[in-house]
């Protein structure tokens, strides 16, 4: 058993690999911490431009955080975003894990066409989508409702989720399904009881990606939602840009606040799915 554990243990590896590994890890830390550190540091400065770069602030200024929390109803924005992003991720991920399964595993006419159509959606510019989608929302009487945004988020970005999930299905050995079929499971049952649980890490990855996209999405949100009580998190940022000045202290504070919920969620959930991945659920 001990030997298995050391399979990816760093100490058992050749020196070259160890050096490369450490370089990569340091690089990863630098790349992610430099902008992040700069952002947090700047958000603590009263005037980020007067003491630029990585200089420490003279005095720690929490004005941006305080005003964001006190005046701007942060929790309301969080609630809206969590609701809209959460529901639409669930809808789209279930929908797509169904269709991706069919495309990954079954032969049917028009499969290539489905592939091409889904790929093409990635390249349609938002300007071409704006008017038809805006009109659809109006016709369904969903204008200025959160449902409109859920509808839009569920449908957009299907291509990325589709390929991530389909790719994961491709890695699952077919024997598993065949065994299930021999046990008398129908197609739907096989998918629900066998495939879906195994593919869960892949599906979770797609869900995380979709959630992050929806969390930061602003264009559609500002187009279909106009009541301020319904707006989502990115709208916080625009508040700090007025006609004649930009409040960088407030802007940077709001940016830090905005990424907190996804960071927390990720830290909690990454345990579940990265560990699930390394559990070797997909063994043949």
């Amino acid at each position, binding site marked *: 058993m001990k030997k298995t554990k050391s399979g990816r243990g760093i100490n058992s590896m050749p020196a070259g690999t160890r050096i490369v590994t450490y370089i990569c890890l340091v690089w990863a830390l630098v790349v992610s911490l430099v902008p992040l550190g700069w952002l947090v540091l700047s958000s603590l400065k009263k005037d980020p431009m007067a003491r630029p770069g990585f200089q420490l602030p003279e005095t720690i200024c929490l004005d941006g955080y305080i005003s964001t929390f006190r005046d701007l109803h942060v929790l309301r924005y969080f609630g809206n975003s969590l609701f809209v992003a959460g529901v639409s991720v669930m809808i789209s991920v279930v929908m797509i894990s169904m269709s991706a399964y069919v495309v990954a595993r079954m032969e049917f006419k028009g499969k290539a066409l489905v592939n091409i159509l889904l790929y093409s959606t990635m390249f349609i510019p938002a300007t071409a989508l704006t*008017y038809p989608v805006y009109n659809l929302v109006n016709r369904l009487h969903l204008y200025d409702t959160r449902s409109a945004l859920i509808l839009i988020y569920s449908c957009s970005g299907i291509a990325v989720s589709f390929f991530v999930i389909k790719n994961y299905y491709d890695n699952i050995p077919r024997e598993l399904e065949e065994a299930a079929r021999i046990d008398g499971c129908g197609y739907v049952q096989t998918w629900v009881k066998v495939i879906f649980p195994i593919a869960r890490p892949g599906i979770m990855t797609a869900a995380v990606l979709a959630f992050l996209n929806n969390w930061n999405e602003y*264009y559609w949100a500002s187009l279909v939602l106009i009541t301020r009580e319904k707006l989502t998190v990115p709208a916080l940022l625009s508040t700090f840009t007025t006609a004649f000045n930009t409040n960088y202290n407030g802007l940077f504070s709001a940016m830090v606040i905005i990424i907190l919920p996804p960071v927390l969620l990720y830290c909690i959930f990454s345990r579940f799915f990265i560990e699930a991945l390394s559990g070797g659920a997909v063994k043949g």
Partner: protein
Amino acid sequence: MKKKMVSVLLAAAMGATGLVGFGSTAYAADDVLEFYHGYYQDESEWAAAQVMRDIYDGFAEAHADGPVTFKPIAVENRDDIVSAQVAGGSFPDMVDVGGGGVPQAALSQDLVYDLKPYIDENGLQDAVGLNYTQHDIDGHIYAVHDQIESRGLWYNSDIFEKAGITEDAFANWDSFAAAMEKIRALDEDVYGYIAGQGSSYIVNTVMASTDEGKAMLESELTEDTINSDEFANAFKTAAKLDQDNGSEHTTDDNGNLMAEFNTNGKAGVLFNGVWNASGIDASLSDVIEPALFPGNIAIASAGGGLAVANNMSEEKTELALEFIKYMTSEEVQEKIFTGVQANPCNTTIDLNALAENSDDAATKKLALACSEVNGAENVVIDINYTWGSDVDKAIINALMECAVSGTDIEARFAALQTELIALIA
């Protein structure tokens, strides 16, 4: 069987798509007049936004008992909302359109109400001020902006004094260039002016200094204009100034560097509108002064403004027109001056008298700036409105590239000419 199912599926989907594509947009109810505006900022961030919202709410309250309810709605990207609606063949009940003005596409579809007859009947010519002439399109007026985008320059008299610059610096662009040279020669961490977005106003005013150039500014951009000596001279003057000023002080968006001038006092000059009065930091309010562009020129544009949809019910249209009258009335216009700190469109208002009664330093400064602009010998429109924002941006981009030391201005200008000719094709 499968084929059948697939075709049923496709038919259903196509039906749904059809729903998206055709037919007009659902409108607000007949007894509500929706009004979209862009003053969404929180009071703690921008007090003027709250003043505007209060003005709108005041009107809504006064007409609460009428047959139509007035409903102001703050939106963050009204331009996108308006263009999405216009693309679908409709127009918001009423909207305070932003910098781009009323979209051409809305006018060509006849979606916007002509306000001129109402203005003429009610004698509102002075109340709407510059709108009356500048927004006149073949005898129609489609928008009335309650405030005028008046632009001049702001300078830091402290820096000017240290550099030994006199008021003559603003006589013409040559003396201006000499003044900037003196600032750069100062042994301090200061520089001439904030270039980039602001530099397009140099082009704007250099062109306005000759009659021929001014005529070109006031009409659509043509190939003749692009190839004219006036335009070449204007661009090269600006590019030369920018290059001497240095690309590190160049930005495509004034907002990025404005604090350098207003708060940190590091720049000698800022090209910005009169509204900059309220952005000046208290520590600098004694030294920052407004002035006209060299050659006694000001840029004033009605810009966008309040636009009303065509073909609404009589009651709704009536209320919308009533609102325009309200917004240009003396009472509201005074609030726009003192509270919003902008140049009101109504020409009958005595700004200096208002400023004297106020003990707010920013208001006094604003009055000074407004009276400078309103009293300029030569007032000209912003090319952004006559030549279009894409042209304006191409010019700004070219100027910014010229700001890099060693750039060949002649070559870049030739390239710009080709670009502009293609843009208007």
